């Protein structure tokens, strides 16, 4: 966990620095009171300080003082990141083929590709889940779900 904390702390320091530079474009004070850049600037500075503190405290302590960090195995990472990429891809697909088809694809990928299911219940899930969501939100609650290239 020590190395992970050092990297995390460094990331926050960099993020804070970038945000601080961005917030410098906003005025810190306007007519004697804090302006739009005051809080973002202050918070970016705080993020840099706390991030640096995390790095310093971790560097100062020996490795054994921390609990072990369990990296996901390649198999675990493939599953969780595969799921995330599938979700990302489906969001991209919504704009092209519409909500319903994109969700069929998403659930299909999750069940058939990532989970490796071939059962009847998996097929039923692929069909029912998007339809149920569409029925609840699109029909019952009258939410206008994207139709992609199939309509407005």
């Amino acid at each position, binding site marked *: 966990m020590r190395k992970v904390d050092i990297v995390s702390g460094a990331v926050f320091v960099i993020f804070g620095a970038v945000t601080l530079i961005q917030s410098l474009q906003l005025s810190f004070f306007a007519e004697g009171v804090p302006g739009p850049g005051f809080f973002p600037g202050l918070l970016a500075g705080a993020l840099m300080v706390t991030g640096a503190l995390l790095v310093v405290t971790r560097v100062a302590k020996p490795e054994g003082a921390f609990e072990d960090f369990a990296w996901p195995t390649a198999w675990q990472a493939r599953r969780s990141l595969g799921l995330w990429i599938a979700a990302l891809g489906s969001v991209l697909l919504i704009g092209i083929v519409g909500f319903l088809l994109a969700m069929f694809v998403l*659930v299909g990928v999750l069940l058939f590709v990532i989970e490796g299911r071939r059962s009847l219940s998996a097929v039923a899930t692929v069909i029912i889940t998007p339809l149920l969501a569409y029925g609840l939100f699109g029909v019952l609650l009258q939410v206008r779900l994207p139709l992609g290239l199939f309509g407005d």
Partner: protein
Amino acid sequence: MTEALQGLADGFAAAISPTNLFWAFFGVVAGTLVGVLPGLGTPATIAILPPLSVNLPPAAGLIMMAGIYYGSKYGGSTTSILLNIPGEDASVVTALDGYQMAKEGRAGQALGIAAIGSFIAGTIGLLGLTFFAPVVADLAIVFGPPEYAGLMILGLSLIILLAGTSKLKALIAGVFGFLLSTVGLDLFTGAVRFTFGRIELANGVEFVALSIGLFAIGEVMINSEEQSGHQLFRVPRKMRELFPTKQDMKQSSWAIGQGSIVGFFIGALPGAGSTVASFISYTLAKRFSKHPERFGKGAIEGVAAPEAANNSATAGAFIPLLTLGIPGSASTAIMLGALFLYGLQPGPLFFTENPDVVWPIIASMYIGNVLLVMLNLPLVPVFASILRIPYYILSPGIIVISIVGVFSINSSMFDVWLLVLFGLLGYVMRKTGFPAAPLVLAFVLGPLFEQAVRRSLVLSQGDLSIFVTRPWAVVFLVCTALLTLGPTVTGVIKHKGPPETPEPSEEKEGEQSVDAPESKTEASISGKRQGRV
């Protein structure tokens, strides 16, 4: 008091008419459904109903709207507990312990205590609304920007309490959440901050996308690391194991009591809202618990306190609406619009000039509260049985519902992109031991704090002494000092005593905890702190 009792009796006589009863029932059922489903929130539901409600008599229309409003607070806990999807803004906190309880096979108890706590707190809030509305309204008027700033400092300081053993990481998460809340249009000057030219960010980062991403999508990603051919949760078969026990009730009684009071007063403050109430109530429950280490790992008080607070806050929110004509939230703003639509003018004389409208609404809320507990308790086994579904079937459903739910808020695909992004962030935070709760708390309180501070300084022309010269502001600052420095001071005093054996600080990976032990040293300090609060 007598006047209020007489008014309430007349209100009940009107509220039990078949028409009003029907609309109360319709309202609470619609509200529960809206609460259960993530995304499409209470304000949107109330907003799409005026075409229906304008054709109803004023009392019936407003009874229906009130039913939706507090029905959604009841329903919001369901998906938070079962699937880690906050169905409603104020239910984010409920997910922290509710979902852990579900994982332990105690979903029924969590859902049960949420319903019972909501009923008790809702009733206490209604009693407050019935008998103390003018007094509380006066208090709400006294609350200016410096008092709000004090209250928000108190709220933000609770990040340290949410942190448990990992204070530094919680602080970083909190600062990051606060920073995230500054995105969008600055309400004071009209300047745009960190929008990078995206018009979708002008109103800031969508809270529901953030909370569902961090909690629900992050959780699914964690769970998906393992093959999930079986059900992930244990669900008891016996009916009596699905409801809270006497011990659960006893354990939750203080949490429900303080949640009811805290929620009522915070709800009565315009702008504070039930989300703030639920966070503050949760952290107070943890702060004063004999076993704070259980919070975030399935403590039943961690469900009871926020649920009580957010339901009591609903009743409190009606006070500024009815007695001052000030809406404290988007939902009450729409109800204010409906009052105007009916030609009614809420204000100090509203109770005396329109008793035929006000009292039936209040009476119907008592009835609605009973209807809700009657509706929700029998459904506990039904809802809990959802967890019997194997996780490989449940997880795609969670993702699909999250996507469509987030889209439904603003009909914005940009929000859905944010959801996916925050999902990855939630996963990384969990893996690296950064708690998500402080981030969400700071995101909620941050803008309120910023506005309160800037308004205060405008009022005082930049003089900082405004924060220490107003009594209520001072009270909040003192409370902040006591709550945050108290454990440290008592820790230092006790440290001079005989050494204590540190408790182990192991945390199971994948366990959703507000505590993320960062070092053995810090964990042992925390272990020593336990039991001294």
